[in-house]
């Protein structure tokens, strides 16, 4: 029998302690196992206290399914939450409390509370829809509206219909609980799940507005001038605040974090430590930032992305500097492109960020924008499900048995066009059948921790470049490391050398993917590439297999490098990229952008690898077209043979048109330009006018020689001439007089009319 958690000891000093009894009552009210929504601001201790409470309740239940699984939207948050609870429980990490994130697993058979990322829980659900051994699931930070968390809400609500003894708790840091309560309520007419509130005393918060003199965004994203302003504002506010204050600076992304941090460091202030916190920082670095300052250490300025907004609690903070910007995904359906855009953060986010300063005492927030900008910002965060590429989500739903999400209720429905596009991609990959349900291959692809297109390339590419190399390439592209100068091959070299902090996680991904590729090798196909793919080109070959519509060819011309993707999209290459000069690239990542790198195309390549034209053609062979197009040009039929790879022209050579192609071209020219295409000689024109007069005065049998009438019966009067044209003759060799005579009504024409001689 497990020992229960000592909630009193764990919750000492945490505001949520007072709400525990409410939550216990709420869960008990629903029958055997309940559901509830917990609504509590960050820093109240809900992430620390609710999991052990549910573990204690589960231990009392007779079924013995005691494990509590808690999702955290980010790896660093899952690790930090586990570490904190283990420390408060006084147990060793991985014993009673553990975590599992991609590439890092510290949990055992006896683990009672396991923190995981939503992606991990999704894959577990697919493997074991009954969640055997799990007594309760807690979805934390549902207000962030991450795509995977939204999927879990829909799928777990369905699991509870089958497993009445599964406790489900959704936790939100903002006041949007009713929306989630309706989703996870009891299905047998029990109404929405109860909401357990944690009114938290917020200490007084001093708000200061400090807009920059320069615009926040320019053509290239966040402007340098604005980042300098943020850094300088942070330094000044930190200097003014009482000694020993820790500060949080919110900027939209990892690049901005390092820019602001380095400016803060260069400004000196020897007594202050500047830390960086973002998803790509090494685990050690992340942990140091969230573990709080030890006695004797110098005060800190922590520059962070929205990671520290609600999912991570950075203790001791009394000063917040907010750029008011965030990065969100956007899907460009017309160009088949997903990308991150930098936008004003929602007012809800801004309140969350500000609130971080006043959890443990009076605090201050400096907003680097004005009140008008704040007022113009959206009220809530944009749900990821409404703007993201849904290919991966659609595969999960297909494997779950709900193609397109049918039958499931989500906080926001996935937009139909994006979902249809995603299902279509899956169909092309062979991941779903005609009815949208997952195929055997689809289930395999769902196990690969990568976009389904990359997963398919892993299996297909293994035959061409070897399992190990294919796995390495897919792990590079699906990882979240940014390629320097968009050069994926260079990123691969860095990760291989082991010097990058992300190498360990990458290596773990590689092994896992290699395993899956090995298991699926039984029915191994053969390489789609005619020639063996060399090592240097392996990365490009895999990327091209995954994204044949993004195989790209350099656009000739002066100025910055531009590429044309086979999908028809044009994109620039980052300035100074080591990829520049390559004729062909396999592009893994292209995003909307303005500014110099986009080179006027509206898009920039973020990740690519060089390939040969043969590889491009082999990988995108279904996009190859070979057409002869004959056109009527300058009085004769000319034909060109065009070989294309999607939108990319490969070769175009003049050829002799076939009779049929010539006929089509002549017919098309006549249709658009009429008989003027051939041209009326003086004699032909005069004859036609006379015939027109006769027709008008006498009617039948005189023929109608109007343009439409003539075009309608080309076969009866112009056939030999048209055949000649179709065969390549020039219009200059054709006089329409004789053909017109073929229309003359004999014998009426010989009789003529008095006063009219046809001579």
């Amino acid at each position, binding site marked *: 029998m497990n020992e229960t958690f000592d909630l009193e000891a764990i919750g000492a000093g945490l505001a949520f302690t007072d709400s525990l009894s409410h939550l216990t009552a709420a869960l008990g009210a629903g029958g055997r196992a309940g559901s509830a929504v917990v609504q509590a601001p960050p820093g109240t201790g809900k992430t620390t206290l609710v999991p052990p409470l549910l573990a204690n309740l589960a231990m009392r239940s007779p079924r013995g399914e005691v494990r509590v699984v808690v999702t955290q939207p980010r790896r660093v948050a899952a690790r930090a939450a586990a570490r904190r609870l283990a420390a408060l429980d006084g147990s060793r990490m991985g014993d009673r409390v553990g975590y599992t994130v991609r590439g890092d697993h510290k949990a055992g058979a006896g683990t009672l509370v396991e923190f995981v990322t939503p992606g991990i829980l999704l894959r577990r659900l697919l493997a074991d829809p009954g969640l055997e051994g799990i007594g309760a699931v807690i979805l934390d930070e549902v207000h962030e509206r991450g795509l995977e968390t939204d999927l879990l809400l829909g799928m777990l609500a369905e699991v509870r219909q089958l497993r009445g003894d599964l406790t489900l708790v959704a936790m939100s840091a903002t006041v949007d609980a009713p929306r989630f309560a309706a989703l996870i309520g009891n299905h047998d007419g029990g109404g929405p799940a109860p909401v357990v509130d944690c009114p938290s005393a917020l200490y007084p918060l001093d708000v200061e507005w400090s807009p920059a003199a320069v615009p926040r965004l320019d053509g290239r994203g966040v402007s340098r001038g604005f980042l300098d302003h943020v850094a300088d504002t942070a330094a000044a506010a930190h200097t003014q605040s009482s000694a020993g204050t820790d500060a949080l600076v919110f900027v939209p992304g990892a690049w901005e974090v390092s820019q602001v941090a380095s400016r803060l460091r260069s400004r000196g202030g020897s007594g202050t430590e500047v830390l960086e916190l973002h998803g790509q920082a090494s685990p050690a670095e992340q942990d140091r930032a969230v573990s709080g300052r030890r006695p004797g250490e110098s005060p800190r300025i922590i520059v962070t992305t929205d990671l520290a907004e609600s999912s991570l609690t950075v203790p001791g903070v009394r000063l917040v500097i907010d750029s008011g910007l965030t990065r969100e995904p956007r899907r460009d359906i017309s160009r088949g492109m997903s990308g991150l855009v930098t936008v004003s953060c929602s007012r809800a986010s801004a309140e969350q960020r500000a609130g971080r300063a006043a959890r443990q005492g009076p605090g201050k927030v400096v907003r680097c924008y004005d009140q008008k900008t704040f007022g113009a910002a959206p009220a809530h965060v944009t749900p990821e499900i409404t703007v993201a590429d849904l290919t991966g989500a659609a595969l999960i739903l297909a494997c779950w048995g709900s193609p397109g999400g049918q039958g499931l209720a989500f906080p926001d429905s996935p937009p139909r066009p994006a979902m249809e596009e995603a299902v279509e991609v899956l169909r092309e990959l062979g991941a779903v059948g005609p009815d949208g349900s997952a195929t055997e291959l689809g289930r395999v692809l769902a196990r690969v921790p990568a976009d389904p297109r990359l997963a398919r390339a892993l299996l297909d590419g293994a035959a061409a470049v070897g399992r190990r190399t294919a796995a390495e390439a897919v792990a590079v592209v699906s990882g979240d490391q940014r390629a320097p100068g968009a050069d994926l091959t260079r990123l691969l070299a860095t990760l291989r050398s082991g010097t990058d902090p992300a190498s360990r996680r990458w290596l773990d991904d590689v092994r896992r993917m290699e395993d899956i590729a090995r298991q699926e090798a039984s029915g191994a196909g053969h390489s789609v590439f005619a020639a063996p793919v060399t090592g240097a080109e392996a990365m490009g070959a895999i990327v091209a297999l995954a994204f044949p519509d993004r195989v790209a060819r350099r656009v000739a011309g002066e100025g910055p490098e531009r590429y044309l993707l086979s999908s028809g999209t044009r994109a620039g290459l980052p300035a100074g990229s080591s990829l520049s000069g390559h004729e062909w690239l396999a592009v893994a990542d292209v995003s909307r952008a303005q500014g110099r790198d986009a080179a006027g195309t509206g898009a920039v390549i973020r990740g690519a690898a060089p390939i040969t034209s043969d590889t491009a053609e082999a990988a995108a062979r279904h996009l190859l077209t070979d057409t002869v197009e004959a056109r009527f040009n300058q009085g004769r039929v000319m034909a060109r043979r065009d070989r294309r790879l999607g939108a990319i022209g490969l070769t175009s050579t003049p050829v002799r048109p076939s009779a049929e192609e010539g006929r089509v071209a002549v017919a098309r020219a006549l249709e658009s330009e009429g008989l003027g295409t051939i041209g009326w000689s*003086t004699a032909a024109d*005069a004859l036609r*006018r006379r015939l027109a*007069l006769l027709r008008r005065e006498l009617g039948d049998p005189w023929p109608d020689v109007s343009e439409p009438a003539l075009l309608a019966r080309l076969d009866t009067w112009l056939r030999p001439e048209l055949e000649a044209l179709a065969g390549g003759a020039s219009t200059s060799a054709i006089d329409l007089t004789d053909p017109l005579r073929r229309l003359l009504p004999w014998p009426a024409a010989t009789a003529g009319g008095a*006063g009219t*001689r*046809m001579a």
Partner: protein
Amino acid sequence: MRIDYPDLSDYDVSDYAVSHGRPVVAVKLQECFGWAETPRLVSGRVPVLFHLLSPARRPVAVTDDLASFWSGPYRQVRAEMRGRYPKHPWPEDPWTAPPTARTSGRK
């Protein structure tokens, strides 16, 4: 096609037009001296419309009844044109003057 009149037998067909439902001959006025009967086409159904041109090939009169033109409006036309084109023949009696495409000086 040629208009049924001897002196126009070599007339350039490009100047012959069918427009607005009427065949038209555009021809210098001097070439029609003495011409009384308007030619008719299509078994006599359609009279030819004459655009009578000045020496500069501008229309000075439009008619499908040459006889009444010579006996009436010609006088007026002659009065206006004589001074402007003194080298061309503007006879008082158009009925007897020989049709010509040339100036009177070279005659």
